[in-house]
């Protein structure tokens, strides 16, 4: 007996909302027109993009595992940290006051902003590289103003609170 299709359960409403149709990216036509070139280009781009967040991730978790001892600038002043980061990496990182612990230079184009939240270390890595947006349970990366941000939290419960301020701007 086939189920009647009239009564909608809450799960059906949830699925309709979450699985709704979306628009295809513009580059799909390019890929259909030149499939081999497009795939090769994507592979190259993916490898380049994938390498950057992986390196940043390793840097962040390496720092966490050492209890974040390598802060080069100890400060809670957002303006001071912003100007220090800009002077050392060329990155302009707007920051809000609160929970800031300092900053360090990871490379000539990458900086790490250190926070101390509820006794735990949280790192915001900023780079001018261009990885795709992604997250796992404890980190998220996104792009804004031509810069890439990667936020990593030692504890998953810190994650949502951090995303609120940083991703929400």
């Amino acid at each position, binding site marked *: 007996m086939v*189920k009647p299709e009239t009564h909608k359960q809450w799960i059906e409403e949830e699925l309709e909302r979450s699985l709704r*149709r979306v628009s295809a*990216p513009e580059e*799909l036509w390019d*890929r259909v027109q030149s*499939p081999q070139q497009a795939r090769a280009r994507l592979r190259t781009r993916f490898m380049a993009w994938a390498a950057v967040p992986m390196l940043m991730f390793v840097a962040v978790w390496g720092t966490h595992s050492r209890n974040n001892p390598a802060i080069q600038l100890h400060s809670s002043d957002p303006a001071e940290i912003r100007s220090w980061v800009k002077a050392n990496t060329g990155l302009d990182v707007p920051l809000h006051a609160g929970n800031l612990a300092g900053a360090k230079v990871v490379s000539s184009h990458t900086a790490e902003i250190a926070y101390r939240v509820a006794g735990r270390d949280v790192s915001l890595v900023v780079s001018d590289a261009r990885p795709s947006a992604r997250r796992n349970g404890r980190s998220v990366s996104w792009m804004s103003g031509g810069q890439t941000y990667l936020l990593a939290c030692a504890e998953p419960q810190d994650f949502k609170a951090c995303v*609120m301020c940083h991703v929400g701007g």
Partner: protein
Amino acid sequence: MDAGMPPCYPGDLEIPGRIRLPRSSNQLGMVLDANDHEVIEACRRGDYDAFRALFEAHKDRVYSIALRYTGDRAAAMDIAQDTFLKLLSSIQNFRGNSSFDSWLYRIVVNTCLDYKRSGRRVIPFLDGLLDAVATPAESVLNRLVRAEQEQTVQEIVARLPPEQRIVVVLRYTEGLSYDQIAEIVGCSAGTVASRLNRAHKVLERRLAHLRAGR
């Protein structure tokens, strides 16, 4: 002009082979019936513009099914690309015994199932969250909460067995009836109902916390 052709709108292009394309692809829905026999015939003759018209008419549908099935944009792009390449290479075999929509659905469904069988790893991205914060109409909190919920639903759906997942996607992304899904997937409507029922039970259990928050 052929009597069977749709009316011509100002700004349309007259394409050799009797295919009319609008100047803007956004207008396609106004003049191009996806099942238009003329367009499909032109595609068979190798008409580039006709294929472009067919692509524009169906790209969102194909991409959405692939995205909702895999939960991953890169995988969805691969599947959508493969689907249109298969369509291009096999449109000679489309005889019109079934509707063009059903034929296209079968191609994308098989491409989805083949993609999973190839064992390529799928990594979901935080697209919903990033899209949510870019939308200005609501508070950031509401948008984030809703995006997080949708992300959760998509992740749970992406873990369903393939035969249940494809039925869920055709039902809720495309809004197809049990009979339509049965024709595409190649089973009975009763089997579709059974798979959906099993999927609902799994999803209700795993997403119970969302119901509590409603």
